[in-house]
């Protein structure tokens, strides 16, 4: 094995093991920042020693043992300091002794619990959203600062700064390393899910010219979601989010044409959908439903995505079911965007007049004032109703609002088609 091979193998081991090692160490030292430093020290030791000694049989255990030794050294050093500064007091000392004892009894069985604690602490509400995202990707996704920076199109020092600040905030706020219980749990869990879905959407919004790290965020988010589903198997919304991401990711390859142009859902070549991911998504959705979580926000969106996934052709789509799912979603998480989607579903299920009625109710919505899809959707309904002059005006308005050149052309073409419709007897 050449040195480069060894380094690449170490990278792979790190990717597999780092989250578990950091989680286990945090439990011992009670500080995420310190735990990560210790784990990094162990990685450096591996990079120094393995090219000479070869990769050990159980590389994960080697890294963990090395990091734990450093942790003990660290305690000893602190204890010496402590003797010198007795004002630090008895309390701290007992805490550290308890932590050393903890280390002795920390067993493999606890790894799952430690990981779950790490998930929760990385998405702690005391942190900024950006801090949560960076820390989660760094500690649980095993991404480097540079990779996170490239994925989010920000300079590397910015990400490094976010991570440093997040660790400091956790330390200063003495956030306990624990899985929240009782009424806290659902709020804390939704913070975790929000971070994962944000990462996913960032990857999903990548366009063809972007660095490959951007679309790879979808895979990172999926992986995080699947890990969480394994750690918290009885939480319905976790499976709901996983279902939603699996099904959305299944369409990744069908979403763009050969020259990078976006292809809308109903126009996609369904043979390009990833059936393995659809299968997994439907299974996760079923699990959500079994756990009684069918009415959760992610579960509802996943159920809508599933309606499309189950239809072999666009014409076979169960629009009535989609419309009723949007009814439930609009009630649970009302927003103008959900309402617009609901209008489209109603138009498909019951005809353009039903859709138009819902869209007209959105006319005075300030947040949609310069959103091109509102006039575009309204134009489509009007066109289908034969009200060509009104449709033409809507398509022109939509064309003037979109920033995407290809889309503008498409809308202007539709406006022209309305003029054609007008001239017909």
């Amino acid at each position, binding site marked *: 094995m050449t040195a480069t091979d060894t380094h690449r193998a170490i990278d*792979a081991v790190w*990717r597999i093991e780092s989250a578990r090692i950091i989680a286990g160490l945090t439990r011992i030292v009670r500080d995420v920042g310190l735990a990560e430093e210790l784990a990094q020290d162990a990685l450096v030791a591996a990079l120094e020693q393995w090219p000479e000694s070869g990769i050990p049989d159980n590389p994960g255990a080697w890294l963990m043992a090395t990091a734990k030794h450093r942790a003990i050294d660290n305690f000893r050093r602190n204890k010496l300091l402590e003797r010198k500064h007795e004002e630090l007091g008895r309390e701290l000392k007992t805490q550290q002794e308890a932590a050393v004892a903890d280390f002795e009894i920390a067993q493999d069985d606890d790894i799952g619990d430690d990981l779950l604690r790490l998930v929760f602490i990385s998405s702690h509400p005391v942190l900024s959203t950006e801090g949560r995202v960076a820390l989660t990707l760094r500690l649980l996704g095993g991404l480097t600062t540079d990779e996170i920076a490239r994925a989010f199109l920000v300079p590397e020092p910015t990400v490094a700064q976010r991570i440093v600040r997040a660790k400091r905030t956790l330390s200063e706020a003495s956030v306990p390393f624990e899985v929240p219980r009782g009424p806290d749990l659902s709020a804390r869990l939704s913070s975790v899910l929000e971070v994962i879905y944000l990462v996913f959407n960032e990857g999903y919004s990548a366009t063809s010219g972007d660095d490959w790290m951007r679309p790879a965020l979808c895979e990172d988010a999926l992986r995080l979601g699947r890990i969480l589903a*394994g750690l918290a198997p009885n939480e319905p919304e976790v499976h709901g989010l996983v279902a939603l991401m699996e099904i959305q990711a299944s369409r990744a390859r069908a979403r763009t044409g050969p020259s990078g142009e976006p292809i809308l859902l109903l126009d996609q070549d369904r043979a390009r959908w990833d059936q393995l991911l659809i299968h997994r998504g439907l299974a996760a959705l079923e699990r959500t439903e079994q756990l009684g979580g069918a009415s959760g926000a992610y579960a509802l969106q996943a159920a809508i995505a599933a309606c499309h996934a189950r239809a072999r052709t666009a014409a076979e789509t169960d629009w009535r079911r989609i419309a009723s799912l949007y009814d439930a979603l609009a009630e649970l998480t009302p927003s103008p965007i959900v309402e617009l989607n609901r209008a489209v579903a109603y138009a498909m299920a019951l005809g353009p007049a039903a859709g138009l009625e819902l869209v007209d109710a959105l006319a005075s919505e300030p947040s949609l004032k310069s959103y091109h899809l509102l006039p575009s959707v309204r134009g489509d309904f009007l066109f289908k109703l034969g009200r060509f002059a009104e449709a033409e005006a809507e398509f022109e308005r939509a064309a003037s609002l979109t920033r995407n050149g290809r889309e503008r052309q498409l809308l202007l073409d539709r406006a022209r088609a309305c003029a054609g419709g007008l001239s017909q007897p």
Partner: protein
Amino acid sequence: MRFMMIVKSSESSGRPPQALMDAIDKLGQEANKAGTRVASGALAPTAVSTRIRLSRGQLTKIDGPFTEAKEVIGGYAIFDLKSREEAIEGAQRFMELHKKYWPGWEGETEIRQIFGPEEFARACE
């Protein structure tokens, strides 16, 4: 990146020891928990398999059993991973278990990347 791990060995190896099955199960659970294993399966013996062969413009259907091949595919698993190295590391762990729990067993795990349309297009260029 998606990979298929294909496990090959002689069909006359006999039943794997329970300790190996348990260890493989544990490794698989870990992979599920890590969110990397997306599918897996064991294959029925070739004695009950069927081959449809095209040769010289003729289709022929051949039912097993076949003359014993040195190595046949016994199982597979599909993983979503970051890199080829991660796949190699995983396959090595899988084979280490065989070394530990099934002395004398011989076989191999082949790591094949599964092409999506993009990789396929690139390979055809």
